[in-house]
């Protein structure tokens, strides 16, 4: 679960990481009110769940209240890469002397949190890693003892900071380490950390992505998690209990298992575009499969649906009942091809065939996909 910048900054502030004075606004009038409170000049930043908002015109400076109103009105009406802007963060503009990068992420292979710092603030860390790897320093953190303050200082010193600044910035990094652990973060990032010409230090931007699996430990976030999904179909699928990713094609997919789902997607992609990725998880029921098919069919242009499921942990005969029920009730006309193997496969085949599904009794997914395209061609 990714938090909005303004939400992340609330958390950062609570955890001892200074952020610029400012507030979120959801209308241009509200933005002007905030501006009066905070004082000019200001920066107005789109709150949107996609990167590259700066280049897309989602971050602007405002020198007077008129500009605040105009700019926030404009940004609030924007769509950035297909994502709706959900608010604007109206913040005191900083006089930048120096920009740094502080971040924490998971070093998956080592299975430890990693702290990364760089003297290149304001650009993506991946870009710095490509262009100036020597400007990056990083260490791994002990999962029981957490980031130690001297480790934070060790890293910050490598950024060339001395004296008071060394002390303050390492303190911020240390607090980021505690925040990372206490909030079950996957990514926590301050980019840039700004040192102003007045010598003050602020997290000018804040990224906080919380582990979805940990939300039971964070009830205040859990409540927001579903409404937070920007895509309507993805949100609906979440309620059904399946994982759905909206893609730009027209072949609907329903698979049990993410690996199988991706492999299926890859194979379909050789001849056509998948409309979605959909993974049922291990809790298949009649209702779940019915819901899954309905979500897939919500897209207008679906030409066919391919179902690829295994009866290992899942009762696929139950799932089959859900599929045929939806075909009947919703009067689905597009061809549905299924490959269903494992426990009770014969029973499953019977149900599906009776309901009008073309069943491919074969263990190779590629063969089933060939059959799907053969049928589609026939229909043309």
């Amino acid at each position: 679960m990714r938090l909005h910048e303004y939400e992340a900054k609330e958390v950062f502030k609570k955890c001892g990481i200074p952020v610029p004075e400012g507030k979120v606004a959801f209308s241009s009038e509200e933005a002007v009110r905030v501006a009066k409170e905070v004082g000019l000049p200001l920066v107005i930043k789109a709150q949107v769940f996609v990167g590259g908002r700066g280049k897309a015109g989602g971050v602007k400076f405002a020198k007077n209240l008129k500009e605040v109103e105009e700019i926030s009105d404009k940004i609030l009406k924007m769509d950035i890469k297909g994502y709706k802007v959900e608010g604007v963060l109206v913040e005191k503009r900083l006089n930048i002397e120096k920009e740094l990068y502080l971040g924490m992420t998971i070093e998956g292979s080592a299975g430890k949190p990693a702290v990364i710092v760089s003297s290149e603030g304001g650009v993506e860390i991946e870009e710095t890693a490509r262009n100036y790897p020597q400007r990056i320093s990083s260490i791994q953190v002990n999962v029981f003892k957490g980031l130690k303050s001297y480790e934070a200082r060790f890293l910050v010193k490598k950024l060339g900071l001395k004296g008071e600044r060394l002390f303050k910035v390492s303190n911020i990094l240390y607090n980021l380490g505690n925040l990372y652990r206490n909030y079950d973060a996957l990514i926590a990032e301050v980019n840039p950390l700004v040192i102003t010409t007045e010598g003050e230090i602020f997290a000018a931007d804040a990224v906080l992505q919380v582990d979805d699996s940990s939300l039971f430990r964070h009830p205040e976030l859990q409540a927001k998690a579903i409404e937070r999904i920007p895509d309507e179909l993805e949100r609906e699928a979440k309620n059904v209990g399946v994982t759905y990713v909206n893609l730009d094609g027209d072949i609907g997919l329903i698979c049990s298992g993410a690996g199988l789902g991706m492999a299926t997607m890859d194979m379909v992609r050789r001849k056509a575009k998948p409309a979605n990725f959909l993974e049922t998880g291990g809790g298949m029921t009649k209702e779940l499969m019915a819901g899954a098919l309905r979500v897939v069919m919500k897209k207008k242009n679906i030409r066919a649906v391919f179902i690829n499921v295994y009866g290992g942990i899942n009762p696929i005969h139950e799932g089959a009942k859900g599929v045929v029920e939806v075909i009947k009730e919703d009067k689905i006309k597009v061809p549905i091809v299924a490959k269903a193997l494992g426990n009770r496969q014969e029973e499953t085949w019977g149900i599906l065939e009776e309901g009008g599904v073309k069943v491919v009794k074969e263990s190779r997914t590629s063969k089933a996909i060939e059959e799907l395209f053969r049928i589609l061609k026939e229909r043309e």
Partner: protein
Amino acid sequence: MAILINENTKVIVQGITGKVGSRQTRLMLDYGTKIVAGVTPGKGGEEIYGVPVYDSVKEAKEEHRIDASVVFVPARFVKDTCFEAIDAGIKLIVLVTEHTPVYDAMQIKAYAKTNRTIVIGPTTPGIISPSEKIKIGILPGNMFCPGNVGLISRSGTLTYEIAANFCEGGIGQSTAVGMGADPVVCTNLIDLLKLFDEDGQTRVVAIVGEVGGTEEEIAAQFIKEKMSKPVVAYIAGKSVPPGKRMGHAGAIVERGRGSAESKMRALREAKVKVAEMPENIVQLVKEALREI
């Protein structure tokens, strides 16, 4: 011989009285797995398919020899369940539970390492060795057959499909292991490659990877420098758009890492033959076996 397990491996089921735990206990018993006990706090004294249930691993251990544990408890209890098994001296844990918090997985991984315990997972379908008639986890037994290919997979059902393809092509498995599909898994690809490289029964190793993380890239380096047996691979997720999480918590191409292309490139540079479609891996294994 298989890796990690054999026909004499004595197994306990942690979370045996739950819906999944009890059903999978039945399937494991049917396959031949020697399940000696189950553990569910508060249900000590009951029986599940003839398997005695205890309140704690310690109590089970007083009555039985235990070599391995398989964990089916809800995600929020996973960390403590694994710590209990580790503290009781169990040296192999198969952690099936999905949605374990990543921080907990990291702590389990660290604690297991300190205590020289192997934890497979989280989110693993398990381990199976058809020739030893043992499976630990949820892998469906009828899709696997005995042989000399070591199969390592980050997926569940895709593993079944590939195993079935293998069997149809006359290729059996020495052991098949699901690594788990989370951002942090407790046993890395490279650890399993080492085990297969030392295993007498295994002649070729097949890797079923997917987008996300850097396991395959790190393994490629190892294969190039240290591995003596031939390795073939398939990587799922070539068509995954960046930034989209594909069902598995670990299956995400982000921040410039973990793309299928990067993995395939690294493996090919290590002279690993990489299949374009899952079923093609069967052909690659056959070729590798011929070339040995």
